[in-house]
């Protein structure tokens, strides 16, 4: 039963990822006083792209076609590590949050290689900018997760969720406050949302992720878009699991599961609203201000780690 639920969790994270993206876009559109596309639009986009053919430049190597597939596969594997409906996940081990961070880095590495293989200027440009953002985002991500793990005295994601479930919501620890702030900033950088990167722009000056995927088309592009939606879903699920997991099912009863699903949907909706509000109210940062932004995240995560020892 546990295994079934774990598999269902992972499948839901993967299958509903485009929906989450659609919800964020719709809320953004409403805030900006537009009608906005339907929340199911990303699914029709994916269907359209899967039906098309793959265009490959003559000078590209097999890495060009392999990288979207690998990116998708690793991101789906990463989704199998996050507890969503109950305090356990399909894959898990001691220190699995390190594995999670490095799996996301795996996908990003191959995305950069695929971009460079395209043979145009945009690929290299996207790769070099992405290298800047991801390099500086690695340290705050791991330090914030480390701080949370140290406070919970356990190093598995499922274990941290179990520990948090037993804590009092109002006993806000400074470590958690700082860690959630740092992780929120890092999540924005990793998933390429405003203020770090604009996911809807195609202007040379403002693209980071979009520049890397410019040369891909058809099913390859569909896989990349889906993988980026899964990544957003994974970061949202991670934030919810680490900092606000109350409502997860503790027993395998139908009522418990129904409540877990409803509460989770509510939390995702809340975070989607927050993300949409942030994206609509803050301007995108100039690229060389992004190290400053990530430096703030780094300072917050270092402070979180130091507080684990000071406020013991």
């Amino acid at each position, binding site marked *: 039963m546990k295994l079934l639920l774990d598999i269902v969790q992972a499948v839901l994270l993967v299958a509903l990822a485009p929906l989450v993206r659609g919800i964020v876009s719709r809320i953004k559109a409403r805030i900006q006083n537009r009608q906005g596309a339907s929340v199911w639009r990303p699914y029709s986009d994916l269907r359209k792209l899967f039906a098309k053919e793959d265009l490959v430049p003559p000078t*590209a190597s097999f890495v060009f076609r392999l990288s979207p597939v690998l990116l998708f596969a690793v991101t789906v594997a990463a989704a199998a590590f996050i507890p969503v409906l109950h305090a356990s996940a399909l894959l898990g081990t001691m220190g699995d949050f390190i594995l999670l*961070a490095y799996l996301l880095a*795996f996908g990003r590495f191959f995305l950069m290689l695929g971009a460079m293989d395209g043979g145009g*200027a945009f690929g290299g440009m996207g790769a070099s900018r992405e290298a800047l953002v991801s390099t500086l985002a690695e340290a705050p991500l791991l330090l914030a997760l480390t701080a949370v793990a140290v406070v919970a005295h356990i190093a598995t994601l499922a274990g941290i969720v179990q520990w948090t479930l037993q804590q009092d919501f109002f006993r806000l620890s400074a470590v958690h406050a700082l860690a959630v702030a740092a992780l929120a900033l890092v999540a924005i950088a990793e998933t390429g949302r405003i203020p770090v990167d604009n996911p809807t722009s195609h202007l040379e000056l403002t693209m980071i992720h979009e520049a890397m995927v410019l040369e891909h088309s058809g099913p390859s592009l569909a896989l990349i878009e889906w993988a980026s939606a899964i990544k957003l879903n994974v970061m949202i699920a991670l934030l919810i699991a680490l900092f606000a997991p109350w409502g997860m099912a503790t027993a395998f009863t139908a009522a418990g599961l129904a409540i877990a699903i409803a509460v989770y949907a509510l939390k995702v909706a809340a975070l989607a609203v927050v993300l949409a509000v942030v994206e609509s109210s803050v301007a995108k940062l100039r*690229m060389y201000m992004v190290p400053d932004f990530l430096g703030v995240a780094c300072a917050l995560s270092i402070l979180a*780690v130091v507080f684990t020892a000071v406020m013991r």
Partner: protein
Amino acid sequence: MIYGFNSFLLLLLAAPIVSLLCVKVKRARALSPIVLVAALLTGVATAAVSFWRGDPLSLDLSRFTPLPFALTVDRLSAFFLLLICVVSVPVVLYSASYIERHYEGLRRDGLWILLPAFIASMVLVVTASTGFAFLFGWELMTLLSAGLIMMEGDAGQRRHNIFIYLLMMHVGAAAVVGAFLLFLPHAPGLTFAAMRTVAAQMPQGMRTAIFLLAFLGFGTKAGIVPLHLWLPRAHPIAPSPVSALMSAVMLKTAVYAFVRFGFDFLGTGPAWWGYLVLAAGAVSGVLGVLYALAENDIKRLLAYSSVENIGIIFMALGAAMVLRAYGAPSLAALALLAALLHAINHALFKSTLFLGAGSVSDATHTLNMEELGGLLNRMPVTGIAMLVACCSIIGLPLFNGFVGEWLAFRAFLGGSTLPPIAPAIVLPLVAGVLALIGGLAAACFAKLYGVVFLSRPRSEKAEHAREVPVLMQLGVALPAAACVLIGIFPAIVLRPLMTTISELMPGTAMPAQATSIATVLPWLALAVIAIVAVVSLVRRTVRVTATWACGQPGLDARMQYTGTALSKPLRKVFSQVYRPDRAVNISPAGQPYFPETISYRSVRTTSFERTLYRPAVDAVVAAAHRLRRLQTGNIQVYLLYLFLALVSLLLFMRFL
């Protein structure tokens, strides 16, 4: 098993003799690599059995030498012996083809004589069990590697680089000899067994002196910042197989020696020893990868990357010393496990990278990244092996680099459970530094692989590249396959390593679930491969055509990003580290608004050269100038010196 070891040594020593004979008998040329490979395979078998089963081997040759000379293979030595032999096999296979293609006559023979001797000297260093044998092997290693570098030629700048290499190696060797000599009053004969028992009773000041001298000496050989200056000068100018051996194996002998001194002889020391090693490792890691990021010469980039990886190994070693000092021996064992695993991982993927660089240089006659490109289509086997090695060095899961980094992270995290505040803060923060190093390494190797192997060739040379001969392909493919194997099934190496460490630090047990990653990785690999297979089957047709590229027809190679451009954003963010000397010259000088030529020069010297080495060298030269006044050339002044020496000696004897 002793017969296996003895036959291994005999074959290894026979190889240079065979090569010497082949100078005369031209037709038996192929014999020398065959003998050498046979020797190394025997070595692999012996070391593997000794490592897995733990039977110690020893060989005592003190009868034939003036000072005690003995070899012992305990588990730690067996591990490093296995490392040396396993990495040398593909390197020798590679050189069998590489040396034929690039060298002839005296150089060729010289290489085949010196190469097995070099490997033998490294074997001597890791199996020595007396001080004399160790120092003999240590010095031989330096001299033979310098000789191998000189086989490539010693024109101008190369001679300067070889000189700096020999100079720094000997300064380090002086420190090492000093560390050994400090044991002398207590452990005559300088056998390791005696040193082990004596070190615990020595006064603290003496132990600290030994530790510092050992750290300085072995750190110079390993390439810790700021003693790393010789690394980017010596490794790129050597022939490719020699670079691979130097970077992958020789640096590890320094790690072995440091582990021997720090953990075996000196045992538990004060915490500041560990903090010193930790800090040095962290600085080396970050600076190494930052300098690697800025390089466009493939081999220099790989040399700086070796500095980075040695930094990671020393970070883990420093953490182990700190954890041990604060009374957490099981966590210290975990950190030591991380360090040793990273040592063998680095040996495997660095040898692939250097041999691959050699193949690239063989096919295109250049190592400048800005002239390469599109080599993956032209050299598929080399390209795939290099891709595997790049993924491993970054530490991506399912490749071997990840397991070492994961263990290191776990050890650092474990440090947060210690009661005193200092390690509880420092060790998790060092985990953040490791994450930063990993991120920078990803950027660096994405640049290396993307610029050299992907997309369009940037010059004629790259355009006409062709795949290298089979032996060279084999030499690159074998370590890459080992990287993937250890990456998915790390338990193969982890279990015997855990036994090795429990032998090194007796009485400590590994923390629970130390290798729990070994259970997840195969499932993860299965999941990823399954998803890739499913998706690939579902995908539709492919059409080869020019892509969008903003509607520009006729994209050529100049539209691509260069290596310099790829690293520019990071170099700008870390500009305080690089600080190049820039000079812009506009001529004619009197007409700044109507220039005829503008020249821009940007020279990067590492800040250590400016702030540490140059002043030190200047001080030594200034002192030497002042001492020159003693050399007056007047014979009566020299007689005066003798007279003064005689008088002071008499006074000294009288008043002693």
